[in-house]
């Protein structure tokens, strides 16, 4: 005899990024708890899921309990684009059960919910806020615990029997793990907000999701007029890095490719470091222009200037960047807000890479990227950068990152963290003073598994871009910034 197990169908949440975090979506007929402090986004999350899924034939009942007046909740929630007022009440019906909840009689609350469920046969049910039902719950009160446990179990039983996917919303703290609803719930999603200095970062954690393998850890999310968007935490291990083709990507700066053995090996991550004004952005712009001229597609993430300023700067090069953007060959993404999470940045970049099918990516600059992150993420900048680079290289692109240094040779130190470990190649620019003149020199410090020039070369920034000149031979102590001529007669 063979038996067939039941297949649990997925319910897409309609919340960008959340299905990936949940391990594919919600389980149909699951009994879920959305927990978090007031203002953490519980109502928004529940309603976004309901508006994405409920129809007149598969309606949702939204039970409101003591708390925010229904009329105010409806007024504010309809500011979100997902709140389709035409769906009320045929697809989504708001039902106020404050009277029953206020009586403190759990049986009457249950009776009312079940009566409404029997009348409307919904596919989805939300109870907002469940916390106010059995609000006087005290873990040491055996009788009260038994009553509430019985209520929660019966509610879960009834809703599952009616083939309903349900959401209980509540202002619980993580210390309340003994509350009966935590035991009975199939899924628990925790919403929180980290406040650090002037920035606030919203985070989501899937504590439990029976029947699914959610991505562990804290995931950042945002709430905008579009509703909630979750940025799944990028697993540190991205899987095998794709084997890049045996080719070099030319930088497009005359003289530089020859120093690098023909250019950057495809799929590498190159860090270009230098002090302010040394021409890092100019070199990075050459890299983009060269790629475009060879028919490649590029993504540039700018953190330190507006896209218009960046594009104006690129006008000195023979490639028309604006035309390339219009043609879909180039994406310039501007990421300057000061409360970004690394996951939000990564998602923006990877989305852009996929959209334009890019092979070259520029991050200009790491210093700006660090500042754009919320303070809580700056503390883990090395980890953040590692995850970002891992996510990008997993797509097979070649990455050029710029970083501003002050006095740190030869390893590209900036801020307080050493980040060169994430790079395959390092190019260093610096100023030297020779004969009372400030001159610019550069050197290739590191090219993993590849021959490269080891001498310092002078370069200049001209009206048409950067040009690498001759080797700076005949000097000692270039790395000090004040070299001396090997031949004192010079």
């Amino acid at each position, binding site marked *: 005899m063979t038996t067939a197990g039941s297949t649990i169908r997925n319910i897409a949440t309609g919340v960008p990024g959340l299905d990936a975090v949940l391990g594919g979506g919600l389980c149909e007929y699951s009994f879920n708890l959305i927990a978090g402090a007031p203002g953490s986004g519980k109502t928004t999350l529940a309603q976004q899921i309901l508006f994405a899924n409920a129809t007149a*034939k598969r309606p949702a009942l939204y039970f409101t309990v003591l708390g925010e*007046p229904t009329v105010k909740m409806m*007024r504010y929630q309809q500011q979100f684009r997902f709140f389709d007022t035409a769906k009320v009440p045929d697809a989504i019906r708001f039902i106020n059960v404050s009277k029953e909840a206020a009586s403190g009689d759990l049986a009457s609350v249950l009776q009312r919910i079940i009566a409404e469920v029997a009348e409307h046969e919904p596919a989805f049910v939300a109870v907002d806020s469940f916390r106010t039902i059995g609000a006087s719950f005290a873990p040491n009160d055996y009788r009260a615990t038994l009553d509430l446990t019985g209520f929660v179990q019966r509610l879960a039983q009834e809703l599952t029997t009616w083939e309903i996917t349900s959401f209980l919303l509540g202002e619980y703290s993580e210390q309340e793990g003994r509350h009966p609803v935590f035991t009975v719930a199939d899924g628990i999603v925790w919403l929180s907000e980290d406040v650090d200095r002037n920035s606030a970062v919203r985070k989501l954690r899937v504590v439990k999701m029976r029947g699914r393998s959610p991505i562990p850890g804290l995931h950042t999310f945002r709430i905008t007029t579009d509703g909630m968007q979750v940025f799944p935490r990028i697993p540190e291990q991205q899987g095998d890095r794709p084997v890049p083709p045996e080719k070099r990507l030319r930088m497009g700066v005359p003289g530089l490719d020859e120093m690098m053995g023909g250019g950057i090996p495809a799929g590498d991550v190159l860090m270009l470091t230098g002090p302010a004004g040394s021409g890092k952005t100019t070199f990075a712009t050459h890299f983009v222009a060269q790629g475009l001229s060879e028919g490649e597609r590029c993504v540039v993430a700018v953190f330190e200037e507006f896209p218009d300023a960046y594009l104006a700067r690129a006008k000195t090069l023979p490639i028309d960047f604006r035309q390339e953007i219009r043609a879909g060959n180039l994406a310039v993404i501007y990421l300057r807000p000061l409360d970004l999470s690394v996951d939000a940045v990564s998602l923006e970049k990877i989305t852009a890479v996929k959209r334009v099918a890019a092979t070259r990516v520029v991050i200009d600059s790491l210093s700006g990227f660090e500042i754009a992150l919320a303070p809580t993420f700056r503390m883990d900048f090395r980890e953040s950068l590692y995850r970002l680079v891992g996510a990008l290289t997993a797509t097979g692109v070649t990455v050029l990152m710029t970083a501003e240094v002050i006095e740190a040779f030869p390893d590209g130190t900036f801020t307080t963290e050493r980040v060169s470990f994430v790079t395959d190649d390092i190019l260093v620019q610096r100023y030297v003073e020779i004969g009372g003149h400030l001159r610019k020199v550069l050197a290739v410090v590191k090219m993993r598994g590849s021959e490269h020039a080891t001498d310092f070369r002078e370069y200049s920034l001209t009206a048409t871009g950067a040009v690498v000149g001759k080797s700076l031979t005949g000097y000692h102590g270039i790395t000090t910034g004040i070299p001396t001529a090997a031949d004192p007669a010079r």
Partner: protein
Amino acid sequence: MLGREGIPGDGEQRGVGDALQRMCARMCCNLRDTMGDDGCTALLARALARTEAAHPALMSIRRISRGTISLDRVVDGVEAHGVAAVTAGIEALLIALIEILGRLIGEDMAIRILELGEPRPARSNPASSP
């Protein structure tokens, strides 16, 4: 809404009163279901405050008990003031309610909430839906 209650074509006073009563009961029930007792009472109180002066018949159709407003004396009101006065009062009350609620949540949704009770389509079999 009045049409759905089957108002007698001959305008017979008792029949009209019953139909108006059913309509008011349904409207209040719908409002109470969505907004709760407190929300329903607050909205009705404000709508009545705006309309009672111009439509004194409304005073005889509403009842206030334990802080809750009910519109359960419509038949008595019709007997005391006549069909025309009560109908005009209820019409003005509905307009006021829609205006008040409409400013808060939008007129379309306000109308749909007050008109709950239309037959609903049967629920599809979840197993066969995409």
